[in-house]
């Protein structure tokens, strides 16, 4: 934490927020949102929350910008220029002023950052995580052990939320009849990126394998360094989006079709929840990995570590495929043809 750097970043944050309100061109506003996410990512990295910063960089600045651009592409590009403020706007401005005032007032009562006597740090549960996590699970990255083991329920249902988001997108803008035609078209092997630019295509061919390998590394190495199922999954999904952007959506869909995506997404949740049920079947409670040392090698602590890896892989499956499905549907209005 260097307060001068933080001050500069926060000032830029306010500036980007104001610009995104001022800009009438929605495409420009999406770009400004990307910058906003990067600034927040830097702030989090400065606070030492590298896992969160990682996710913000991948999701906030990377994929959601692409998804926003895809949405703007199919809707109006410019917001309506109402010069006169309507009654609703005045009302919401007043509401925001009151809410902002309350929040500003409350921020005076916050404990200082990193204060060891603050309730969050002083609570016995936090003490236990900090002191007992390595003995319990042999996982040096505390974030992973809290996320995938101690608070496994949270993460399981976060994964389910991601899955539901994919289903929701499909339910809102998916086109069933075009989808059936699509499946037939997928059969013929179109030449990879036949109508694409040579330079972009070759660069993406170089980058995509490296990106996918790095995504797998992020999932597998999440125990020891920042990363895990969500971050790795987003990177893997982004590699398919890159493939779709460079070589055409048809090519990307040939490698990962939509029906296969949903099968894999469900598979991820089944892996996660199935592991929880396996613990129950062996006579312990749901998602209590300690009991699994009878079937996994390396003792109780290592069993918990291995279980986390498998569970994170399940999260990775779901996040990868759902991100790609969301992009593919938004970029084509659910027709899965053409694309950006």
């Amino acid at each position: 934490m260097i307060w001068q750097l933080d001050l500069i970043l926060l000032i830029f944050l306010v500036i980007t927020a104001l610009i995104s309100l001022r800009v009438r061109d929605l495409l420009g506003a999406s770009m400004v949102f990307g910058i906003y996410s990067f600034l927040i990512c830097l702030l989090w990295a400065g606070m030492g929350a590298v896992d969160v910063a990682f996710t913000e960089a991948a999701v906030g600045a990377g994929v959601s910008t692409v998804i926003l651009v895809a949405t703007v592409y199919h809707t109006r590009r410019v917001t309506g220029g109402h010069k006169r403020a309507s009654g609703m706007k005045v009302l919401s401005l007043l509401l925001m002023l009151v809410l902002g005032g309350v929040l500003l007032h409350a921020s005076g009562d916050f404990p200082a950052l990193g204060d060891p006597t603050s309730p969050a740090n002083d609570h016995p549960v936090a003490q236990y995580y900090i002191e007992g996590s390595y003995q319990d699970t042999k996982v040096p990255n505390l974030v992973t052990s809290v996320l995938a083991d101690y608070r496994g329920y949270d993460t399981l249902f976060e994964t389910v939320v991601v899955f539901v988001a994919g289903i929701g997108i499909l339910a809102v803008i998916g086109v069933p009849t075009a989808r059936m035609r699509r499946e037939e078209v997928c059969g013929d092997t179109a030449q990879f990126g036949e109508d694409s630019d040579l330079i972009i295509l070759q660069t993406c061919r170089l980058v995509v394998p490296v990106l996918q390998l790095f995504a797998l590394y992020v999932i597998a190495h999440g125990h020891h360094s920042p990363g895990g199922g969500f971050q790795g999954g987003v990177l893997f999904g982004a590699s398919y989006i890159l493939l779709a952007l460079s070589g055409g959506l048809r090519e990307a869909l040939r490698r990962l079709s939509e029906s296969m995506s949903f099968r894999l997404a469900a598979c991820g949740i089944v892996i996660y929840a199935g592991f929880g049920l396996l613990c129950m079947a062996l006579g312990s409670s749901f998602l209590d990995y300690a009991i699994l040392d009878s079937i996994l090698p390396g003792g109780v602590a290592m069993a918990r570590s291995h279980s986390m890896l498998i569970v994170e892989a399940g999260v990775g499956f779901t996040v990868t495929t759902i991100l790609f499905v969301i992009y593919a549907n938004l970029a084509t209005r659910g027709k899965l043809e053409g694309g950006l």
Partner: protein
Amino acid sequence: MSLFFDILAGSLMAAGLIFFVGTVTGMLRFPDFYTRMHAGGKGDTLSTILILLGAAVHVSEDFFHDPIHQWGVLLVMVKILGIAAFLMLTSPTSTHALMRAGFEDAHETDETVVDKDQDGPSLEELQSRTWEERS
């Protein structure tokens, strides 16, 4: 020895900053879209890579002090060089993609840059050609 590394790292980073100033000036002052992208693409790539090289030199200093115990910093150096290589590949590509998108969107060139009276295909003619004919 330490002074040498400091000077090398500092001068690489300073050179990077100078190129950054050039980039920003170019992006603000050049007359049309294509020249602005030219300044942005070239200057941004070079200056970022120079700053990263400076950082790589800076971290590798420890290794040359004590090669046996400090070999781990080489890993950091390799990672920084990896980022530099990645940027060298992707940054010009994204500039190219933007440039081509602008070209297909028929952004006008400035008359101070391109002489419209001279013989040769106009922008519209170029756009109507296929990609093979252009190159």
